[in-house]
């Protein structure tokens, strides 16, 4: 039982890292729908680096770096060039999907390194994730920088007028968000499931993106949501633990995705929007032109 819980919490850290990065992005007003692409690239870079150098640490470093660079690329298109953020995000996703399939395919198979040591069976990434949630919350809601980030996402013109460098703040956030997405991908390929496979994520990134909307842009709610989805994901992989022999295992695999849709509907109802949805950054997805 503990093994299942530990495994679920490890799965939830992957959702959590990526979603936390996206939350920071969105709080500053930048929408990145290509989150899955960043995770794919980060995960693939981490896997290839770790396998060729034999070092987990270098692998994580590669994942973080590439994720951050891709985040900056999205920033260049959406902040500097003021392009459509959905076009750029989708572009990043398809670019990563295509290129990682090609670049990673010679490395298809297991990582072949020792497992990352665990604490009583629990992956060290879960406590790291909780710490990051706390840090993000403190950063966003208890520091001047956090106030600057949030105001850049709510009303960039007013923020600029009060002396906040909106462009630099947004670039900082996309870089941080990209690094966290890279970390998430690296955690997947180096720790959770250290086997490289074509399109290994199969929708994790999009579930993480949905989690940000569920979280009402609050890191603590995000932690709860990610944990719930981690448990659900793990149960969908081994349904025999709860309901042995009921339905095919393939049908269970659809459950985490199927549950996402009604939740998205609930948070989109007018009732929910007026009552709870006010945390949505006002300028989300809108490019800002300095006047």
């Amino acid at each position: 039982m503990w093994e299942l819980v530990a495994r679920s919490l490890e799965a939830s850290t992957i959702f959590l890292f990526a979603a936390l990065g996206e939350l920071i992005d969105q709080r500053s007003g930048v929408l990145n729908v290509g989150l899955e692409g960043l995770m794919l690239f980060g995960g693939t870079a981490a896997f290839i680096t770790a396998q060729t150098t034999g070092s987990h640490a270098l692998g994580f470093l590669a994942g973080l770096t590439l994720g951050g660079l891709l985040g900056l690329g999205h920033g260049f298109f959406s902040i500097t060039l003021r392009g459509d953020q959905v076009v750029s995000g989708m572009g990043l996703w398809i670019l990563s999907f295509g290129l990682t399939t090609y670049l990673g395919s010679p490395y298809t198979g297991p990582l072949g390194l020792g497992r990352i040591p665990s604490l009583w069976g629990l992956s060290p990434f879960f406590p790291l994730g909780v710490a990051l949630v706390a840090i993000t919350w403190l950063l966003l809601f208890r520091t001047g920088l956090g106030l600057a980030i949030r105001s850049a996402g709510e009303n960039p013109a007013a923020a600029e007028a009060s002396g906040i460098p909106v462009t630099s703040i947004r670039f900082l956030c996309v870089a941080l968000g990209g690094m966290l997405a890279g970390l998430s991908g690296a955690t997947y390929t180096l720790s959770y499931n250290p086997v490289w496979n074509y399109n290994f994520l199969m929708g994790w990134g999009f579930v993480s993106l949905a989690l940000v909307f569920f979280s009402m842009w609050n890191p603590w709610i995000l932690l709860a949501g990610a944990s719930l989805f981690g448990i659900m994901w793990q149960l969908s992989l081994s349904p025999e633990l709860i309901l042995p022999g009921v339905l095919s295992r393939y049908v269970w695999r659809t459950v985490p995705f199927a549950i996402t849709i009604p939740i998205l509907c609930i948070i989109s109802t007018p009732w929910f929007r007026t009552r709870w949805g006010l945390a949505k950054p006002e300028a989300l997805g809108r490019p800002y032109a300095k006047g």
Partner: protein
Amino acid sequence: MRLGRYELTLEPRPARPAIFTALTAVVAILLALALSSFLFLSSDAPLIDAYRAMFSYAFFNPHGVLATVHRSIYLLFCTYAFLVPLRAGLWNIGLPGQVYAGGLAAFAVPFVLRTHNPQTLALPPGLLIVLMIAAAAAAGAATGGFAGLLRAKLQVNEILVTMMLNSILFWLVAYMIKEGGPFMSATGEGESFGLPSSLHAPLLLGVPVTAVLALCVAVLLDLLFAKTALGYRIRAFGENPAAARYGGIIPVALSLLVFLLGGAFAALAGYHYFAAVPGVYKIPGNYGYYGDLGFYGIIAALIARGSSLGAVPIVVLFAGLSVGARFAQGELRLPFGVDYALLGLLMMTFVASHVLYHFRFGWRRIPSEALQPVPTELPRG
């Protein structure tokens, strides 16, 4: 940005003539092809041979040409599936899911009517084929329409919903064709039962009838957007939803309609691939590969800037490239996925060309009086 005595700015383009649109598309594609040369670096063969292998197989080898034609039909339907919602400003990335829905529904017809066993064939095969196409289109429309309805009624993000549907339908197909699922082949190899030969889509000159359908749709869609009130409403809604609503256009019906149409087109792609391509006529175990190939439809529709006729040559080129790339990959012992890598590169050059399509670089000399320091001394006298 200021560079010495010159100022570099990014300005919106006031007008975009058709020739300019075509030119950006050509440049984006050529650039992606040039960039793809780095994919061939790991091969020992000279670069020119790699390109030659790719193009000569796709467009001159008899087997290759046929494969290119089949794939073009498949990708054309995928392109329409993405293009119609895009004109209304919505992103249908649920192409794989809708393709699977179409395939499943088409195979459900012979399955339900117990005709996959040739002895019990009850209805005339022609009618059954029409039924299969209709069932596929209906299933795809339902899958797409679901996302469209949620978008229309509740403003639920269509990218997320269609992506979730992709994963759901991917696993549903696995359930149907693998490990004792209802559609599993008698040999139990993780693929669906094969269609009896009477239910294969009829061929015209070796090409399935779906080709005719695909080309007709290209003409009809361009007419729809250029000449009809409905097309105008969709475009207006896509350009500026707020203004369109002010002009009396009802967004709910439009969002639903474009997704119903889009889903039906993607499902026809699924029908074409699983039930009309000679040598297939089943849902193979690697159906996921063909589903993901549908993403070429996204990039084709984007590069064609929403013109369905304009998308036809682009799609034929992409179909040939993906077929040829797979061939060159085997021939030159390249890693798996050259075709996907090309897809990624095309997306990258498209995003870059998108900026140049909407903006131009302003390059002007800063007037010299603006640069001259203010005189500190009063002129004499």
